């Protein structure tokens, strides 16, 4: 079946022309809006983005060329086809000079109209896809990208799949590196909006005013440096999904602005007066405890309830360690291709080490450690030496890590802390450190670690 295509605006003072053209285009699966005059057309152009504009040349009041000039200003990316009953070279040249894509003489050959509109909407879709692909990670995310055999993750996937089918707001909670964005992309890819854009914003990365402009766009002259008007993420994500990462970090003012958009489904660009309708599905994420932020008064309670429609919590990697071998296999297969290196796997000792680690940086940290290991490995097997695994934070009550310490010192301190934690039981300490007993003895000897120190 035909998927929903772009929107087309038909501007013509004759009702029969608007109706017949609209129904002809609707049969092709386009969404069609019509306007009987220039003013109505401009009002629609301020409200919604169109893939193509079909504009009649001769209209009472504002004529087609005036509409064309305004349309070029309001929606420079939308190609305009001028329709005319009088084919004169002069008007055609004038229209093309003003930036019209082409012109059609009424009545049109069906083939000509079909090809022109089809080509334009296809080009528009390709352009949009190209921009998105370049910005995205060059790959499509699906649930199969989230590997797991943990029951905890199964429950997450089940909830996320159900959420994907709806249009409701999803709130993804989880520590850094647990795959919140991957899950958000997977939800988008499985949702009815999959053919629309997936647009992500990291709310913590920008200052309040930059984030405001990033989200809602701005008009020319709205602030110093705003030399042109720009669309915000709410406009860019139209028809798709807007992923608001690190939502727990936004300022009180933006919390209020966001609440208004979620309530009214419309907003104004910074410095703009015109209300713009929005058609996005919101997926928000945070590694912070939003409930606590609400209790402490840092996060608006009404916004929290607006976002917390379908909460999905991603467990940290330390709570699903059974997934580590699977993830190792997955990432190595990826690096094998990317690095063109015949990697076979991680040594048993190395894997033990990976299993013993607490992974405060979660899957992202595991990926980074493995990537480094894959680069450093001299043969097909990645060894513990290649992994250069950062030691886990000291156990509760232990001394804070001195960041100035060398790797040797850090490793020595970490081994000593682990030995103390396990009352110098070598077998248990070695297991906790993810190394074998002989290696631990060697390290104790090399670092001259003593029980009485």
């Amino acid at each position, binding site marked *: *079946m035909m998927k929903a295509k772009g929107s087309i605006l038909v501007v013509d003072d004759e009702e029969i022309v608007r109706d*017949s053209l609209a129904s*002809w285009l*609707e049969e*092709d699966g386009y969404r069609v809006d019509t306007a009987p005059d220039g003013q109505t057309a401009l009002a629609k152009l301020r409200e919604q983005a169109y893939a193509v504009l079909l504009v009649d040349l001769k209209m009472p009041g504002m004529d087609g060329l005036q509409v064309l000039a305004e349309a070029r200003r309001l929606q420079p990316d939308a190609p305009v086809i001028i329709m005319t009953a009088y084919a004169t070279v002069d008007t055609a040249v004038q229209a093309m000079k003003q930036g019209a894509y082409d012109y059609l003489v009424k*009545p*049109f050959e*069906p083939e000509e109209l079909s090809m022109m509109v089809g080509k334009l909407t296809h080009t528009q879709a390709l352009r949009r896809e190209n921009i998105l692909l370049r910005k995205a990670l060059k790959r499509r995310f699906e649930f199969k990208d989230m590997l797991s055999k943990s029951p905890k993750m199964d429950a997450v996937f089940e909830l996320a799949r159900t959420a994907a089918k709806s249009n409701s707001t999803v709130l993804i909670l989880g520590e850094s590196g647990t795959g919140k964005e991957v899950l958000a992309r997977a939800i988008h890819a499985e949702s009815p909006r999959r053919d629309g854009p997936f647009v992500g914003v990291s709310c913590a990365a920008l200052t309040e005013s930059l984030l405001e402009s990033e989200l809602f766009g701005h008009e020319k002259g709205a602030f110093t440096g705003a030399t042109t008007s720009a669309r915000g993420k709410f406009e860019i994500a139209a028809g798709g999904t807007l992923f608001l990462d690190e939502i727990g970090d936004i300022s009180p003012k933006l919390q209020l602005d966001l609440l208004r958009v979620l309530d009214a489904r419309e907003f104004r660009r910074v410095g703009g007066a015109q209300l713009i309708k929005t058609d996005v599905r919101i997926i928000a994420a945070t590694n912070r405890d939003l409930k606590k932020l609400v209790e402490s008064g840092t996060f608006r309670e009404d916004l929290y309830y607006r976002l917390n429609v379908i909460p999905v919590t991603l467990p940290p990697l330390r709570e699903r360690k059974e997934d580590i071998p699977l993830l190792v296999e997955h990432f190595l297969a990826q690096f094998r291709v990317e690095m063109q290196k015949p990697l076979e796997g991680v040594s048993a000792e190395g894997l033990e080490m990976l299993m013993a680690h607490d992974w405060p940086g979660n899957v992202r940290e595991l990926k980074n450690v493995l990537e480094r290991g894959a680069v450093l490995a001299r043969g097909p097997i990645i060894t513990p030496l290649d992994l250069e695994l950062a030691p886990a934070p000291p156990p509760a009550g232990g001394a804070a890590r001195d960041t100035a310490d060398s790797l040797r010192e850090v490793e020595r301190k970490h081994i000593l802390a682990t030995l103390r934690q396990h009352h110098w039981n070598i077998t248990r300490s070695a297991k906790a450190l993810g190394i074998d007993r002989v290696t631990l003895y060697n390290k104790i000897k090399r670092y001259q670690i003593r029980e009485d120190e």
Partner: protein
Amino acid sequence: MGEREGILLAWIGTGPMDADMLERVRQQVQATFAVPTRLLRVNGPPGDTLEPRRGQHSSTRILRWLLGTASPGAAKVLGITDVDLFIPVLTFVFGEAQVDGPAAVVSVARLRLTYDERPAPPGLLEARLAKECLHELGHTYGLVHCPDGACVMSRSNSVLDVDRKRAAFCRDCRQRLWELLGGRGG
């Protein structure tokens, strides 16, 4: 057959009706949609559907007329005519339908000709007519155009396009039609 059921194929041409050909088309329509399909000769189209300046009939006005006069007891009525059809912005149309509505019209005027405007052999005309009937009726059941050029729901802008497609719905359109028919056939 109860009230407002099935499909009515109404010959609304100005010339004689090719009863044998239309009977075969009727059978094909009935087999495809799995609903009772009747064939009837109705006098028409009325004079006010003609646009003298263009020498063509307005397909939209014919649809309006069909709805008012020619659909006794049928859920869908498809007018088949030999006059050339147009909508105001286009030079011609092979047919027009109300998407998810009760009426549609198809013209054989251009289907009778080859691409270089010579008379088409009778077998070819029948095949084209069957395809266009399935296409317009598909619209009345709520289907829109299909991007699969071989599917009968793909858009035809010329007789070449009509000849290129098959007289059948693609898998996706068949599935969609089945859903639109409430899982009772198609």
